[in-house]
């Protein structure tokens, strides 16, 4: 068994779990943060993307024990109270989601992507950067649109743009 301690969405949490417990299982089952999803077994679909120490990673491909000591942000921790993160708002405003299953991972990936491209994004870059996130509903059209829109909003200092991803 491993003792796992993390800061998740700003809150210190602890748990004792089997060593084989994945970070995504710890988040979903121990902490009840079910917004992070599992859509594949091969680390490809990206439904499980969270931020660990400020970087987007696949929480299905990391043990909870590996993450111990880290700071984790999940989809549940993105909005500030009732104020949506600009990427969340952009997904809604641009119809960047349909069934909503891949959405948390998409949004976490998008926040990370925008953060890594302070000079802005274009469509080919967004499409290439989405390599690790699969959506079956939207055909990506409106996801790409949403990310470009959010990138612009955040560059212009809109929403909670100044907030660190």
């Amino acid at each position, binding site marked *: 068994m*491993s003792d796992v301690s993390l800061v998740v969405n700003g809150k210190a949490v602890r748990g004792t779990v*089997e*060593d*084989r417990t*994945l970070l995504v299982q710890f988040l979903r089952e121990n902490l009840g943060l079910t917004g992070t999803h599992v859509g594949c*077994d*091969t*680390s*490809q679909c*990206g439904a499980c*993307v969270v931020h660990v120490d400020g*970087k*987007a*990673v*696949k929480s*299905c*491909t*990391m*043990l909870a*024990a*590996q993450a111990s000591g880290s700071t984790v942000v999940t989809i549940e921790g993105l909005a500030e109270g009732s104020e949506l993160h600009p990427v969340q708002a952009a997904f809604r405003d641009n119809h960047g989601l349909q069934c909503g299953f891949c959405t948390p991972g998409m949004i976490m*990936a998008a926040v*990370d*992507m925008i953060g*890594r491209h302070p000079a802005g994004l274009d469509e080919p870059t967004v499409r290439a*950067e989405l*390599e*690790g*996130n699969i959506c079956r509903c939207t055909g990506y059209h409106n996801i790409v649109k949403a990310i470009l829109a959010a990138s612009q909003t955040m560059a212009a200092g809109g929403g909670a743009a100044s907030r660190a991803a």
Partner: protein
Amino acid sequence: MYSVSYQRAGTIAEAAKLLEAGDAAALSGGMTLIPAMKTRLSAPSTIVDLRHIPALKGIRATGRRVTIAAATTHAEVAASAEVKGVCPALCHLAAHIGDPHVRHMGTIGGSVANNDPAADYPAALLAMEATIVTNKRDIAADQFFKGLFETALEEGEIITAVTFEAPDQAGYAKFPNPASRYAMTGVFVARRSGQVRAAVTGAGDDGVFRSAEVETALSRSFDPAALQGVSVPAGNLMGDIHASPEYRANLIVVMAKRAVAQANG
């Protein structure tokens, strides 16, 4: 995943000691090991996490000598100004491994130690005559890669760094497998004092290899045109549902041309 014991090492010595336990595996970024354990294809009894060992982090460039510590992530290599200064092709390669999330975790040491026949780094290391540094010795890339998932590493031996003298020119082009996005064929070309080495990943049925046909042609003239009409034998190439050996043979030449074009800027 089967039951496993997780151990976090603070130093290389501690990691080496932990790895002495029977059936232990080193865990770096985990981008290959964890999925393999999830599908129960890999079942170590203990995994030793190397990611928190300070000595395994960082990139050093002195002149054209580049040393990348083993637990350096693909994202860190891709973004490294030091590497870009002398060997931009390696940054390009690192920037196209997996996807952004994988690049945040996956490490050069893990990739090299795993020696997946479709991984990108082995092609670069072989073409650039890199040295793989372990806690026990230095191993030349020519002696290191031994076939599918096989390397010269001994039980419990830990890669600590990869080091190479940047070639005069280098380029990497890959044609990704449409599903897995691993290299279906990737070619790294490196030119040093007029000599050219071209290493191919993703295509060989025994892992990464050097293409004599490509090297001969490019040693004559380091130009894509030199590869016009060159053909590579399909005999020892992989065939699967994604690509036949013949198609991979074609891709080797096409990717070599593109790698040269990139090297020539």
